[in-house]
Structure formats: C-alpha cells, structure tokens
C-alpha cells in the first residue's frame, strides 16, 4: 500500500496552489461539513483522540490545548483562534510549502479550530517575508467568504467566524506564542508571564488558541477521516504524518511528508540521498537550530516526539540541519548563537546579556583567541538559559546547540583553543 500523505499529496507539482475547486473535489471542506453536525466539544474530543501534537516545536497535544478554553454562554467574548505562520526557525521551510501549495487546507483547519472553541475571530499571523503565501492566502480567504465557509451562518449553520490575514513586522520572537499576541495587539513582541495562559487570557485578555500551520493543516483530515485513521498513519505512538526536511551538504536537500517515526537514517539516506561525495556525516540538528545535536550513534532514532527526546534532543520542527566533516562545529555553533543573540527581544537578562556574551566567547575561539576556561564559562552561561530562568523558550532553545556541541565536539573546541586557530580555515 502506498503511504498516505494527506498534507501534501494534493499539492500540484508545478508550483501552483491547489484551487478551491480542486481542493473541494479532493475532499476539501468535507471535514468542516461533518464537524458542523457535531458539537464543539465533540470536535475537541475527536482531535484529542487522534493524538495530534503541535507541529511548531513544543509538541503540546492539540486537543488538550483546546480543552482549556472556557466554553458556553458564560465564556468571555470574543474568543480568538490564531494560526502561527511566523515560520522563522533556522533551517525550517515546511509551513511555507503548505501555505503556498494548499492554502485552503490551512483555512479549513483554522475554521475547525475556531468552531471547536466557539471562536468569533481568526487571525493568520504570517511572516513578512512570505510574500507568495500571503497572496495565496488572501485570495483563498476571499474565496472562502464568497462560498459561505466564512462569515455569518457558515454552511447555513449558526456558526460565524471572521478571518484576517496579519502580516508580521518581523523578528523570531513573534513566533513565540505570547510574543505573537503582543505583536498582534500592536505592541513590542516581548513574551508574557504565564499563567495566565492564552487559552484563558490571550489576545486583548480574551481566550485565545494559537496553533502552528502544519498542526492546523492536519485538522480537516482528522475530521473527515476520523481519529483512528490518523493514528494509523504513524509508525510509532505519536500519531499522523510529519513534514521532514533536510538541509546541509546532503545530495538532495528537501522536504518530505512521511509517517511519524521514520528514522533519521531513512530520511537522510533514502530521501535526502545521503551525504555529498567527499564529505562525511558528523551530526544533525534534528528539528531546527534550537534543538540539541545528535550524532552517528543516533541515526536509527525514530523522528517522533518521544524517541528524539529520549535520545537527548527534541523533534522541534522536524526539519534537520546536517553537519558534515568539512564544516567547523565551532563555526556553526557561533553562527547559530549569533542568530539567537540578535533575535533576543531584550526582556530577560540571561538571554539578552548571556547570549551576547556567549557569541563573543565563541567568536574568539573560532578566531584562534580562545582561552583555557572559555568552555567552562560557556557551560556556566548556558545553565542560565535553562527553562525557568527566562520568560520564554528562546534562551532554552539557544542553549541546546551550544550544550550539545560542547558534549559531542569538545575535542574540536579544545583544539581551537590549544592550536590558536581554526583548522577548517586555510
């Protein structure tokens, strides 16, 4: 049996977006029709049973997130649903593919999330640089209004939802749930203290659900084909399919929708075609820049939330960055830390000050000016980036490549300091 690829199998090969008619012909908006015959609580239950977990990086169970929203006549109004389309994790390009190729899939998923929590208003918060996605989503939203999937009395039901496309002014922080909400309110994208969680007090203090694009794109299929079917797509306990990507010096960098739990080896060797001739595999950031390096001994780890965590990293966005033996591990770590230091919003001191400090140490080591004790200083600094020391996950994410590089590539760091040069530079 060919593997099912519900998220991507209907995306046209030529780079065009799937049209509304094409989407409907292939089962589009059937999930919505089915959901409108159910109660919002039943829709929440269906998604909870399916085992869908957030595809943005943290992997929180989607149905459970929805279930924290106050429901019924006494709930505060208006309630909001937000699609987090601020895809900015280095090495990650999966949401863009879904939005450019099948915008109606995301819109239907967002309507379904809205119905499940009785939301009144929906926003798609999209990265400023994603121009083509913006054009295609804007057109698709207009189409959805014109045929009665949005607005009042959706498909002749009592349910009403307004949908807006909001183009982000930029910065990595806007992808953090509460930073996103501040940005949407027109404020600086600093994180908020939690609790209260957005499900209870989010946008303008009202109940708000924020979900990633890939997460929402799964929802129409779950409602159309059922939770059992969704569970069956996976090879492991974490349900569904997953968009996996690979970048770096592999033969065929790209993006593939595969059963959840496909191994790193299969993705890199079969789908990405292995390493380019003349270079050897040294390590991989399995889910974007903010995940711990894994190395050769981890190649048979299944790419699902549980297994990658057990191996000492995180599934993150599922888009891998491959490190080869012709690339300096100190250089890549310095580069990534520069990104995080630059993108720090300036709110918490361990982040804005500590990351900047770490970039200075890493640059010095790479430039041959590292000193004995620098590695201890880096470990000391990275302790203050661990969860609980800062308001959001930016600093804990930044700590992951640093702490794991120190673990797996320590010899390279020490050689830089000892030889006072980077041996990858001529």
């Amino acid at each position: 049996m060919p593997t099912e690829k519900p998220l991507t199998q209907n995306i046209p090969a030529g780079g065009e977006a799937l049209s509304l008619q094409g989407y409907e012909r292939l089962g589009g908006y059937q999930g919505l029709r089915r959901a409108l015959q159910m109660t919002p609580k039943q829709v929440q239950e269906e998604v909870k049973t399916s085992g869908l977990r957030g595809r943005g990086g943290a992997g929180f169970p989607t149905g459970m997130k929805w279930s924290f929203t106050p429901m019924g006549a006494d709930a505060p109004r208006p309630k909001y649903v937000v699609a987090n389309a601020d895809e900015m994790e280095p090495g990650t390009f999966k949401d863009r593919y879904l939005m450019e190729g099948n915008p109606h899939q995301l819109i239907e998923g967002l309507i379904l999330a809205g119905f499940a929590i009785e939301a009144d208003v929906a926003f798609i918060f999209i990265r400023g640089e994603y121009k083509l996605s913006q054009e295609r989503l804007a057109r698709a939203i207009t189409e959805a209004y014109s045929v009665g999937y949005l607005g009042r009395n959706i498909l002749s039901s009592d349910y009403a939802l307004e949908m807006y496309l909001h183009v982000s002014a930029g910065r990595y922080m806007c992808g953090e749930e509460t930073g996103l909400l501040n940005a949407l309110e027109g404020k600086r994208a600093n994180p908020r203290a939690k609790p209260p969680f957005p499900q209870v007090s989010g946008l303008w203090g009202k109940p708000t659900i924020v979900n990633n694009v890939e997460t929402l794109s799964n929802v129409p299929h779950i409602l159309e084909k059922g939770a059992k079917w969704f569970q069956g797509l996976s090879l492991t306990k974490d349900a569904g399919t997953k968009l996996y990507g690979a970048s770096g010096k592999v033969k065929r960098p790209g993006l593939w929708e595969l059963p959840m739990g496909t191994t790193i080896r299969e993705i890199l060797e079969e789908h990405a075609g292995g390493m380019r001739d003349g270079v050897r595999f040294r390590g991989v950031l399995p889910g974007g820049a903010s995940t711990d390096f894994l190395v050769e001994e981890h190649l048979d780890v299944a790419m699902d939330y549980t297994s990658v965590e057990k191996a000492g990293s995180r599934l993150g966005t599922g888009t891998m960055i491959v490190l080869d033996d012709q690339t300096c591990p100190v250089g890549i770590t310095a580069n990534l830390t520069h990104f995080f230091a630059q993108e720090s919003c300036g709110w918490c001191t361990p982040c804005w000050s500590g990351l900047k400090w770490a970039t200075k140490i890493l640059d010095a080591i790479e430039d041959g000016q590292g000193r004995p004790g620098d590695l201890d200083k880096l470990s000391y600094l990275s302790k203050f980036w661990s969860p609980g020391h800062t308001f959001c996950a930016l600093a804990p994410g930044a700590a992951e490549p640093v702490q794991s590089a120190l673990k797996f590539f320590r010899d390279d760091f020490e050689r830089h300091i000892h030889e006072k040069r980077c041996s990858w530079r001529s």
Partner: protein
Amino acid sequence: MGTIYIDGKASGADPKQNLLHACLSLGLNLPYFCWHPAMGSVGACRQCAVKQFKDAQDTRAGS
C-alpha cells in the same frame, strides 16, 4: 502583618507586598533593576531572584 527575618533580625512586613518591595520599604539596600513601584513586579532582569525553600527542613536549593 507578617514577620520576615533578615540576617537574624525580625521585621514586620505587609504579606501583600512582594519580598523586594517589603525589603526596600524596610530601608534595606538590595540590588534591583527592572522593578518599579508604579510598574509592579516584572521579573525579567533576574537581579533580585531568590531561592525558595519548601519549609525550614528543606535543605535542597528550591527552584
């Protein structure tokens, strides 16, 4: 009115205040940066962060 002990000395403090506010009100010179009476407790700079113990018997550093 609650009682707080600082360097072995007991002082009265309003339990509704946060610890930094209470200590500053007692005239103690504590380092702080992001706190301001008009802005409340921000908690972002981490300068006044403290370790919290469960009770008098708790000897592990609490989180």
